[in-house]
């Protein structure tokens, strides 16, 4: 395995949880709901996926449990913000506090255990392509899911009727409601989808990235995922690009250190954040394009008048 290939593999593993959680949040936000609890849902997914894997011995059960756990946990957010129209920003942050606490409780018996790693699945023929094969076609299930999610969500949002409705709700829930679209129901589904994705991202952390449970092992990745949605101006392909950019810069700085280039590690460590900001500045100069893609109802509560 060549060095470039090895580095890219590391980048893919580091970027995948960011991409997945970010895609989920993108759908949630496209429906007009701002859920800042990604970090909490992600760590819940990690704990539940790890616990389920240890109990059953199968990481696939873990993946399913992580997805389900994230979705169920996000329902709490949905109930508060959609049914009770509680403030979305505060509820999302509270969800993160709760998630860190509950996941710590769930994971405590499993701390220090070595987990079961989700094994790669080689796709016949494609896996044998030089260079690209090992990178893209000899990966684990969650990586394949991440790519399918990008393609699927892109199609859903921009080419399907349901996606059009979802975007309509995000842009103007009052008129969407007037057109007969189920605003609250759709938003519930979008929130749960976001939770499921965050849960899957968490499962990636505790089953692929580092098969173990450590309290707060998400280490702020949920926040990065949130930022990536903005970075991507709510477009799925840009989430993928943003996640990989962030991952690539993070990994390159480690390699730079191992080569011994003698720049303070704090500066190198700040590069992914700087890079994200700089690229965002470069791509957001066109105000119109940004506005078109920003869900106009984002974060605003909706109560159908009867």
């Amino acid at each position, binding site marked *: 395995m060549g060095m470039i290939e090895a580095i890219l593999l590391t980048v893919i593993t580091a970027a995948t949880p960011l991409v997945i959680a970010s895609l989920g949040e993108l759908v949630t936000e496209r429906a007009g709901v701002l859920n800042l609890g990604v970090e909490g849902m992600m760590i819940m997914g990690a704990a539940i996926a790890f616990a389920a894997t240890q109990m059953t011995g199968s990481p696939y059960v873990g993946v399913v449990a992580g997805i389900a756990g994230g979705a169920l946990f996000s329902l709490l957010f949905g109930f508060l913000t959609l049914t009770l129209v509680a403030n979305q920003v505060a509820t999302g942050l509270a969800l993160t506090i709760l998630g860190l606490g509950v996941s710590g409780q769930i994971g405590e018996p499993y701390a220090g255990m070595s987990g079961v790693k989700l094994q790669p699945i080689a796709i016949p023929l494609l896996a044998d392509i030089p260079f690209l094969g090992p990178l893209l076609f000899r990966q684990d299930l969650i990586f394949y899911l991440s790519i399918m999610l990008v393609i699927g969500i892109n199609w859903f949002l921009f080419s399907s009727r349901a996606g059009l409705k979802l975007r309509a709700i995000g842009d103007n829930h009052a008129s969407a409601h007037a057109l007969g679209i189920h605003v609250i129901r759709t938003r519930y589904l979008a929130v749960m989808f976001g939770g499921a994705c965050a849960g899957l991202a968490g499962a990636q952390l505790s089953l692929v990235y580092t098969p173990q449970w*450590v309290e707060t092992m998400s280490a702020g990745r949920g926040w990065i995922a949130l930022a990536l949605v903005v970075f991507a101006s709510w477009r799925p392909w840009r989430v993928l690009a943003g996640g990989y950019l962030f991952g690539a810069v993070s990994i390159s700085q480690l390699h730079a250190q191992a080569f*011994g280039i003698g720049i303070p590690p704090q500066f190198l460590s700040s590069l992914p954040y700087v890079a994200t900001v700089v690229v965002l500045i470069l791509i957001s100069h066109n105000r119109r394009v940004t506005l078109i893609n920003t869900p106009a109802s984002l974060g605003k509560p909706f109560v159908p008048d009867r």
Partner: protein
Amino acid sequence: MKKLLLALATSAALLGFSAAAGAQDKTKVCFIYVGSKTDGGYSEGHDRGRQELEQALGDKVETAFLENVPEGPDAERAIERMARSGCALVFTTSFGFMDATIKVAQKFPDVKFEHATGFKSSENVGTYNARFYEGRYIQGVIAAKVSKAGVAGYIASFPIPEVVMGINAFMLGAHSVNPDFKVKIVWANTWADPGKEADAAKALADQGVDILTQHTDSTAPMQVAAERGIKAFGQASDMIAAGPETQLTAIVDTWGAYYIKRTQAVIDGTWKPENIWDGLKDGILTMAPYTNMPDDVKKAAEEVEAKIRSGELHPFTGPVKKQDGSDWLAEGEVSDDGTLLGMNFYIAGIDDKLPQ
């Protein structure tokens, strides 16, 4: 509402009093951790010590702890709460608690405090630390004997003297076997972020190291090493479960012996503030079994360990040059503890530049 509160207050007060009455003759020993007690690394090591203390002294002691206390403004409050809650002896287990410990100790002259890894003491504050560098030296010896590439990867947390001292000790050990042995160092800028530690481990493995050692908390680097089929050293805990065929040995924090000794001193009324820096011979750190290495390497490691225990060998013995080529220790000269505790330079033979 008021009535309810009143009822709550009285019943709880009663509870509190009865609990206090039962605990009269027990010595309360308290611990404050910077991480979670199940962090798999540093704080868990201290909590193991707390549990050993409970087992060893049984009915004579009662322990309590606060975990995940950030090293900022919250520390003083947490420590003062312990002093107020009847703790006779408080162990503040992280460097960042130093000033807060000293401040609270001034307010509570009757409570004894022990601060780990710091340098400030007072009439009722002692300090304690472990000579982890002894273990790192042994690891260096093993690394140089086992490595075929002649280069090890070192995942470091932050450039503080403790970590720099560890890197130097590791390299002194390695150079005692192979003077050309190299090390690649990556600063993760974190104590515990498994993902980042794994990324650092992968980066080092990709650059051709065949031995990994870490000064961060999680078992992620061990798992990466296992996956890549290279060898690694565990940190703070025995990490053999994460790499049954990977771990060569591990430096295991065994604070328990120390906690028992000092608590007993408080019970006996003989406690005095001391600046303690114990080593392998005192049991404050231990080496996990030497595994996954040829017998001759194992034997060499055991010999080095025995020499360190007996005091025959001090890892920081001259001749040692600093990285810039200047002389540090003359032939046979042993470094004083002050230089080690404030170490901010690399020894010769490390190519990396120390972040300043």
